[in-house]
């Protein structure tokens, strides 16, 4: 729109102002508060046994949820885009559900299934496997909320590249697996990469669902985000800020990766 200079500057100011107030300043201020007491305090706060355990637990969440959802994501994308059986549309719709459901409800749902009085809870407990208030439950929660990302990113890429490369591979003698591995996967790799980054960010930062399911037992079932809240409620602001700053730093690194990968994905 041939906007005159005044409109342009006006809109730019509005946009920058809004983003500044809402995003930039708060984040910058948290870093400021964090480093206010010096690096030593941060280091101490982050190296307490509980903090380290929280970090480890968070990393376990990610290490399990991301590969699972990536494999699922690529598979589901292939089914939805290339498949021919009915029910694909249904699957497509279901995959979006984690976006629409409150994390607390997710936690509730898992609690109802695998808790002591849940549908499967007693069976698992009899086998000696505790799901709720323990790591497996938290992993399930993390998998649920980070499910859609890889699928969503891979689907448009798969559509874009079309089937001719795969047909070519087939005429050249490649088996379905060879075709997937040598032709399809490399063609979608940037979509997968971007999806993985988003999945990881979500898995790292999940709070609500894991909150319900974990029982928040300090030192046992606290992930890093839960740890932040825990420290806050315990009036240990330094600890809370330190953990927050760590998570925020990871978030910014994630953003950086996203920026680098997005154009690669687009040019597929």
């Amino acid at each position, binding site marked *: *729109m*041939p*906007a005159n200079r005044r409109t*342009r500057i006006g*809109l*730019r100011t*509005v*946009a*920058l102002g*809004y*983003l500044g107030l*809402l*995003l930039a*300043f*708060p*984040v910058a*201020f*948290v870093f400021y508060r964090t480093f206010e007491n010096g690096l030593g305090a941060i280091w101490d706060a982050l190296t307490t046994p509980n903090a380290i355990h929280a970090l480890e637990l968070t990393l376990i969440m990610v290490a399990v949820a991301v590969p699972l959802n990536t494999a699922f994501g690529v*598979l*589901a994308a292939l*089914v939805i885009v290339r498949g021919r059986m009915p*029910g694909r549309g249904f*699957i497509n719709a*279901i995959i979006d*559900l984690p*976006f*629409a*459901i*409150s*994390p*607390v*409800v*997710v936690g*509730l*749902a898992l*609690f*109802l*299934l695998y808790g002591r009085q849940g*549908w499967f809870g007693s069976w698992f407990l009899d086998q000696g496997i505790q799901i709720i208030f323990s790591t497996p439950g938290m992993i399930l929660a993390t998998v*649920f909320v980070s*499910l859609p990302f890889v699928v969503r990113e891979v689907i448009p890429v798969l559509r874009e590249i079309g089937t001719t490369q795969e047909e070519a591979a087939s005429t050249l003698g490649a088996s379905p697996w060879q075709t997937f591995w040598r032709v399809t996967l490399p063609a979608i790799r940037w979509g997968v990469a971007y999806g993985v980054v988003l999945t990881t*960010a979500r898995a790292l*930062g*999940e*709070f*609500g669902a894991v*909150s*319900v399911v974990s029982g928040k037992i300090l030192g046992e079932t606290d992930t890093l*985000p839960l740890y*932040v809240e825990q420290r*806050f409620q315990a009036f240990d602001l330094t600890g809370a*800020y330190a953990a*927050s700053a760590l*998570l*925020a730093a990871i*978030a*910014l690194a994630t*953003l950086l990766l*996203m*920026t680098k990968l997005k154009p690669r994905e687009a040019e597929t």
Partner: protein
Amino acid sequence: MGIVTLYLSVIVLLPLAAVFAKAGDNGLSAAWDVITSKEALATLKLTLVVSLIVTAINGVFGTIIAWVLVRDRFRGKGPLNAIIDLPFALPTIVAGLTLLTLYGPKGPFGFSVAYTRIGVAVALLFVTLPFVVRSVQPVMMELDPDAEEAAASLGAGSFTIFRRVILPSLLPAILGGMALAFARAIGEFGSVVLISGNLPFKTEVASVFIFGQIESGGVSGAAAVSVVLLLLALVILTVFNGLSRWSLRHAR
């Protein structure tokens, strides 16, 4: 195909079914009682109203930001584009703490939005910011400047051009983004939990209410309110997407 369905069923569908089942556990009337209890109604009302307001605000600002990102030219546009996704990348609890730090009682400003509905709104604005921007951006990039130039040559002013030429093309995307934003807002937990103080009847949102019910053993009640929330999300999503499709037809 089979694996996909199995995975989805186990991870997503089964848990959801459990929620619906539990809601009716003590009978429908008991569920209804919980849902219509004063506290529950208050949280549902608050959640609905604030979410709608926030969605509207971000609908406007999101469009403006998308315009600036696509049409404007200035140094630092790249980083600005990247930072839009921050609410997606940042854990919700950290977002909440961040906003509380700056706009709460210990912040540098004289005022505090902690324990207020404004605080709730600010948190929801934060987490729903990217939806409309990211929804509108690609559409805006595809816009054909010819139509706008034609309108300008016919004497239309900037605002008129925006209203009659640009907006209709963007409306489907804006509404679609708003739908996503709304769905996110009504379920939001982590970012609201710290800044709102969770005062019943004042700043308690539905997700916090549900959480409280779970912790205090009122699991069926929690399930009942959850079902209401899910249905609410479904209804509003359908409405928004319907509006989006309608505007798509009218844009041509």
